[in-house]
């Protein structure tokens, strides 16, 4: 009977590593793009409280942050230890909130401006007084969607 004789080499060919740099570069670009270098310095203490019933915020462009907490130690000499409000890059007063809301609204198209969420990043040791004041200001400037930033319970 005719038999086809296998003439293939038994030696396994080594995996070519010439494409390795390309693969690594693709990974590199991915991480470069995903990385957000924090462009803003947080000047207040910001340890978020723990919670379980969390909702993920969907559209980052529609989220603005309001930080509340005690000033970090290096600012404590000038500002004391009472909880302060931080908007954007600097300490702010309550009166600046309506203005801040307006500027943040102007950064997005008018159609979706009312979907804007204000994420309150409040230190867990803060007393509710200042938080209530901020909430009242937000209500007065018609920014009604808020989000109490919290971290996930670890023991759950």
């Amino acid at each position, binding site marked *: 009977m005719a038999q086809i004789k296998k003439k293939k080499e038994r030696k396994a060919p080594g995996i070519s*590593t010439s494409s*390795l*740099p390309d693969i*690594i*570069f693709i*990974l*590199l670009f991915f*991480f*470069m793009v*995903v*990385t*957000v*270098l924090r462009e803003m310095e947080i000047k207040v203490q910001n340890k978020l*409280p723990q*919670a*379980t*019933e*969390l*909702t*993920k*915020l969907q559209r*980052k462009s529609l*989220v603005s942050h309001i930080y509340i907490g005690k000033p970090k130690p290096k600012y404590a000499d000038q500002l004391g230890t009472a909880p302060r409000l931080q908007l954007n890059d600097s300490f702010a007063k309550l009166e600046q909130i309506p203005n801040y809301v307006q500027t943040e609204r102007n950064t997005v198209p008018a159609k979706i401006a009312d979907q804007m*969420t204000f*994420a*309150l990043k*409040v*230190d*867990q*040791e*803060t*007393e*509710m*007084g200042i*938080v*209530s004041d901020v*909430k*009242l200001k*937000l*209500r*007065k400037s*018609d*920014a*009604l*969607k*808020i*989000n*109490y*930033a*919290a*971290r*996930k319970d670890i023991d759950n």
Partner: protein
Amino acid sequence: MLQKKSNRSRLTTEMSTGSMADIAFLLLIFFLVTTTIQVEKGILHQLPPWTEEEPPEAEKNDRNMFVVLINANDQLLVEGQQMKVDNLKEKSKRFIDNRGKRDDLSDSPDEAVISLQNDRGTSYDMYIQVQNELKAAYNEVRDEWAMQQYGRKMDNLPGPKQDSVKDEYPMKLSEAEPKQTAN
């Protein structure tokens, strides 16, 4: 004069690409370490619109109002009883899902209102815990109802059905302006 004669070959040597992978690896590791993929999470809350006039006094029946008070020492008073945060969820679930069975709890989930008032001295941590428990109570009764009606938990339901569950158990949280206690 003595002149050094360059003996180097004029041939253009190709750049070695062997180390390319290592360089890329280093960069990759750097970005891996520095990357913090931020997932922003939190408890969503809708504030009531601002009105100049005083809010109307609660003319609701007492039974449809679930009063939660937190004082400046982070102590919790629920319907006139002192309580721990851990028990708040069960208690509010019973209140929401009473459906007229007990005459001191709500008539129907639709009419049930939770009234929350805190003190200006309450810690934010406590406030979030209470908010979290109340939200958890609603999520649980909604899940139970969704299980009965559709055989699935709420998160796994399609959008319109989720809305119907939310309509069945609307979360009505009324927050009064915080009190100021003299310190």
